[in-house]
């Protein structure tokens, strides 16, 4: 985590644009050399790199992410205002993805190399080859412009979440279904399944009690990875549908070279991502008795 913040900070430090000039032009003042020098002094930009970084870092630890150049508001406030919208969108998409992928992935693995499996694989293959933003635009064209049943953009009531969420779901569910299929197939080919079959255990019992239970670990790991790519996909979808979340905020920050805001966004996303991974790791302890017992001994 410190690595990421250090890297982005270094990139910003060595980047061509001068933040002082950016700040001045953002506030509409003509940047004269003396003025830039003065602002640089105020912002502490003349200090050595490491001191700047430590100064920024100590601010972050106190919850102070600096002030956005563009909005002249604290970065933390801006992010806090946008986060709920992103969480809403990500939550709905994640739920939708699970609802679609779990049954499809399991069925695809069970009916391996049958018609149903080929169909699921074909559709999910189409899904992973389609660029997410194109799906979004197509959906927008069909449902908002041609059929006029759903709003084009923005966040106005429950109807407006459908298109962005479906866009994310299509892209993510195709990937997740394929990964699930692979995970379950691997589990089914284990020796204990053959053993159980030989003992005459019913297929249904084998599937529900043994296979699903032991592939739960990989299912959850994959879910963690999907969440990571969800955070990335959200940026694009939010931009297309003008969804007022952090992704859109970040893209706007990039275009106006609002460095504190970019930096704050990166930190927040890293924190969220690390938290997700921690939750995945903790869930292992509950799900896998091997890991749990190992710790006790």
């Amino acid at each position: 985590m410190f690595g990421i913040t250090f890297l982005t900070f270094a990139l910003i430090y060595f980047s061509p644009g001068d933040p002082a000039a950016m700040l001045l032009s953002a506030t509409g003042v003509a940047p004269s050399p003396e003025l830039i020098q003065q602002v640089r002094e105020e912002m502490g930009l003349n200090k050595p790199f490491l001191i700047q970084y430590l100064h920024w870092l100590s601010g972050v630890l106190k919850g102070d992410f600096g002030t956005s150049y563009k909005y002249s508001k604290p970065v933390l406030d801006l992010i806090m205002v946008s986060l709920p919208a992103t969480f809403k969108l990500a939550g709905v998409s994640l739920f939708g993805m699970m609802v679609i992928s779990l049954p499809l992935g399991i069925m695809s693995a069970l009916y391996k190399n049958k018609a149903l499996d080929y169909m699921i694989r074909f559709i999910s293959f189409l899904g992973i080859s389609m660029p997410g933003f194109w799906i979004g635009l197509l959906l927008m064209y069909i449902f908002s412009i041609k059929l006029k049943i759903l709003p084009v953009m923005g966040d106005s009531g429950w109807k407006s979440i459908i298109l962005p969420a479906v866009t994310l779901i299509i892209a993510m569910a195709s990937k997740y279904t394929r990964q699930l299929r692979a995970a379950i197939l691997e589990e089914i080919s284990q020796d204990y399944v053959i053993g159980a079959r030989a003992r005459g255990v019913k297929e249904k019992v084998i599937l529900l009690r043994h296979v699903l239970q032991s592939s739960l670990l990989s299912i959850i790991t994959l879910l963690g990875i999907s969440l990571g790519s969800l955070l990335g996909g959200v940026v694009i979808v939010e931009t297309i549908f003008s969804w007022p979340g952090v992704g859109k905020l970040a893209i706007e920050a990039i275009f106006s070279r609002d460095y504190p805001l970019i930096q704050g966004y990166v930190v927040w996303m890293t924190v969220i991502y690390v938290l997700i991974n921690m939750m995945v790791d903790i869930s292992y302890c509950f799900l896998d008795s091997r890991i749990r017992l190992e710790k006790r001994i």
Partner: protein
Amino acid sequence: MEDFILFIKKNKLFAFLCILVLILALMCLFVPYIAPNDPLKTNMANSLQGRSSQFPLGADNLGRCLLSRLLYGAVTSLKLTFCLVIIVFIVGTTVGTLAGYFGGIADTIIMRLSDIFLAFPSIIFAIAIVGILGASSINTVMALLIVDWVKYARVSKSLVISIRKKDYIKAAKMGGAKEYQIIFKYILPNIIPSLVVMATMDLGTMMLQISSLSFLGLGAQPPTPEWGNMLNEGKDYMQTVPGLMIYPGVGIFVTVMIFNLLGDSMRDILDPNTEY
């Protein structure tokens, strides 16, 4: 020659996909002769015009020929994708091989560095990097290189470690072979096939990454035609001329699909045991 025919007969899908890729490559080479119009020539009189004999797919908002732009866009997109894959491949493999073969402090540093990158959703980091460096095609490739090389370094490192302990390496060492000879003669030939498969499978993903960044306005800058930024320009005219946003998308979709299928069938040929 007979072996070659047999190989094609056995792997029809693979051969077919190779031909498709070849066609794509030839198309890119001969674009100046195929394209009906200059992709950059604007003429407001033709703005948003429908299909005509002069503009087979119509014209965009600035009156530029859509078909020509699509063809030139393919060149830009494919060029960037291949550049990225090749650079990532070389950087990742070199770093990974050295780290795996020599170990030590360099290895530790590289692996910690790659931990940092893995701890973060790559596309967000790439977006942030381009955002900081400034939007352009070169910076996009740079940013994706910074994010993507890690995977290759890790895989090649683990491959090298598994090979390093083999007997024939020890034999070569006893025979007095120099370090670089061992690396080039014994290690690289062994690890490159799996890495090439990985690179082929990644072509599609990387093309999607590049076009996403271009779509966000961070990659290739207008007026250069590129499928991602064409989509971005076309989306504003969705209501009147949907073709502007449909055709570039179809281009990305079909190309990525060809690359994905190619990667899959290549893996099946070289490594028939794994199932996905």
